[in-house]
């Protein structure tokens, strides 16, 4: 049996925020950065995705429609540039009592995109203090984050013993060949694996 336990804290947080937001004027937006999609995940596209989620939720504003019509008439149907997206996002988000933006696995974005993204987020928070931003990533990108947000709060995350046990229980209950498992083996797995992992 091979196991690998990866916990997506962003997905937990997004669902938690959505549950809390129900019935309130609160928007929850997010993007999952992906090492394999770096080309498609330009800063413009990532921030555009946040704007798209806002527009899907609250309706497309007139000025966005107008900008689209204008761009359509231009040579080849002009695409959006980063400053356009940042301006639109700032406009949309300031009208919200509370907006949450999540960026998952920031370290999977190339450094240039990360810089642009953090700069834009800094700008958005400056004009809209009601915005909260949730970031996840490997430890080393903290140095980059504090350059833009000197007081950013950090939580170290690592699967707990309880997490590992819940995961193992699920895996054992999903086992397609339950006859191969006896009580002793099961008890050994539940005891030894969490111990080993916590020593890693």
């Amino acid at each position: 049996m091979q196991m690998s336990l990866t916990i997506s804290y962003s997905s937990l947080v997004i669902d938690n925020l959505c549950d809390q937001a129900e019935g309130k004027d609160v928007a929850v937006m997010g993007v999952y950065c992906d090492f394999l999609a770096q080309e498609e995940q330009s800063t413009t596209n990532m921030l555009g995705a946040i704007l798209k989620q806002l527009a899907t939720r609250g309706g497309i504003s007139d000025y966005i429609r107008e900008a689209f019509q204008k761009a359509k008439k231009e040579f080849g149907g002009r695409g959006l540039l980063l400053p356009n997206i940042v301006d639109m996002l700032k406009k949309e988000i300031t009208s919200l009592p509370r907006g949450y933006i999540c960026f998952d696995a920031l370290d999977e974005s190339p450094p240039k995109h990360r810089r642009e993204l953090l700069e834009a987020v800094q700008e958005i928070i400056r004009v809209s203090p009601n915005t909260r931003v949730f970031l996840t990533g490997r430890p080393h990108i903290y140095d980059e984050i504090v350059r833009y947000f000197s007081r950013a709060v950090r939580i170290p995350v690592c699967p707990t013993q309880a997490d590992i046990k819940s995961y193992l229980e699920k895996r054992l209950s999903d086992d397609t060949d339950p006859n191969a498992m006896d009580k002793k083996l099961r008890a050994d797995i539940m005891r030894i694996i969490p111990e080993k992992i916590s020593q890693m």
Partner: protein
Amino acid sequence: MSSWHQQIIGNTNSFNLSSIVNFISEGDAEEHKILQWLSPLEPQKRHQGVRAGRVDGVGNWVLETREFRKWRGEEDGCVEPVLFCYGNPGVGKTHVR
């Protein structure tokens, strides 16, 4: 309803959706074009995938931390708006023989 949850409906009812597509009004088609123009990315799809692979209760302790609850909280101003959860994405592959 948030767009995160609409996606679930979109997925589970995909058969129905595809049969409705023919009846989408011109206005809706325009809306779709504008949204695509804003960004071709669809993070909700990834979210549904990640969420489907989750084991109930695993990692939930983060939601109970003081830092998270304070960050999520209602009060304005004094709260630091940026929260960073850091770590390696998972525990390495473990083989059980």
